[in-house]
């Protein structure tokens, strides 16, 4: 299934996030009270409508997507944010043409191949910013969903690519082992992958 087709087909089946939460509550499904965890796909089995269940998967996944570990490097502007408080990055650094910083301020100048805990600096060999069209900061779950489902705004990724990006990419995986005093993204990358897979398998329906 090609990306653009998928995007058109999903637009017909959108649900209100609020109504899904209500449905879940009605179905007796308790959200994990701890925002640091992710519910497994099985937790949503009580939702019989696949589209509604798909939305539920995405909403659960959104705990990760809207977490500062992710939004800090999917910023609304060309400047990343940092820390749990998501303050603008100091010193001021910018995306640059390739996403790896400007000519004078390259991401890799400070961010090494791995976290350097003595100085509290996060690291990964490919430390860089998401492209501008993949900005998530400040967006609603519905907006992020529409965005990551749209190949024009998701780095021309198919749904399978998305599963791999969220589920297997090691830079994304850093979000669950950020080091220092950073709060990790909820759950684990494996759990997040399971949710993306479940979301895709149920039609990749977006909340509204």
């Amino acid at each position: 299934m090609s990306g653009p087709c998928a995007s058109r087909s999903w637009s017909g089946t959108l649900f209100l996030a609020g109504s899904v939460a209500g449905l879940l509550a009605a179905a007796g499904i308790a959200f994990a009270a701890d925002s640091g965890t992710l519910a497994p796909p099985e937790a949503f089995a009580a939702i019989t409508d696949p589209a509604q269940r798909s939305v539920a998967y995405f909403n659960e996944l959104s705990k990760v997507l809207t977490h500062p570990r992710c939004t800090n490097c999917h910023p609304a502007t060309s400047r990343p944010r940092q820390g749990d408080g998501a303050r603008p990055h100091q010193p001021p650094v910018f995306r640059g043409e390739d996403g790896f910083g400007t000519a004078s301020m390259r991401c890799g100048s400070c961010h090494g191949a791995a976290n350097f805990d003595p100085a509290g600096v996060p690291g990964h060999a490919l430390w860089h910013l998401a492209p501008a069209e993949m900005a998530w900061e400040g967006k609603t779950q519905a907006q992020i969903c529409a965005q990551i489902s749209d190949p024009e705004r998701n780095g021309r990724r198919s749904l399978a690519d998305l599963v791999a990006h969220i589920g297997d990419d090691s830079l994304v995986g850093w979000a669950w082992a950020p080091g220092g005093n950073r709060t990790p993204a909820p759950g684990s990358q494996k759990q997040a992958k399971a949710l993306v897979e479940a979301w895709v398998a149920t039609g990749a329906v977006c909340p509204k």
Partner: protein
Amino acid sequence: MATITLSVNGRAHGPLAVREDLTMNDFLREVLGMTGTKFGCGAAQCLSCAIIVDHPDGTSATMPTCIVPATAFDGRKVRTVEGHAKDGRLTTLQQSFVAHFAFQCGYCTPGFLNEGQVLLERLERAPIPRADLERVISEALDGHLCRCSGYVKYHEAVRDVVLAEPGRYLA
């Protein structure tokens, strides 16, 4: 412990055993006794600790040293503030800093010098239009904090080096 070998200002050091936790800043200041590279914030936010890394492809870049382990510099060639002048003769940029009274307390000077020098070398490889000069200087130096000078004279000092040799730095 890890073993590193590196070149600082053209002089070879190592192989030396260092702890993985040792920062490059402490390697320079505590192990080599080279304190021209400063410690300002320990968080790469002031860049008074920045040094120059010369890449094998002929390009160079600055790197902070306060948050980067010494092991990350294994096999690398670096330059520090102590390596710019040769036999007591200042470089053009150093002389420009002096002539402009660019710095006051001087604690940020090593970082600005290294950044300015890398910029000049970059412009030499890839000249820019005159109209872009102020913007490019501002972008290059903006990571560096100075509490004394208000930055004006640093920017003027770099700009005047470029303008003195437009054929070398400007497209």
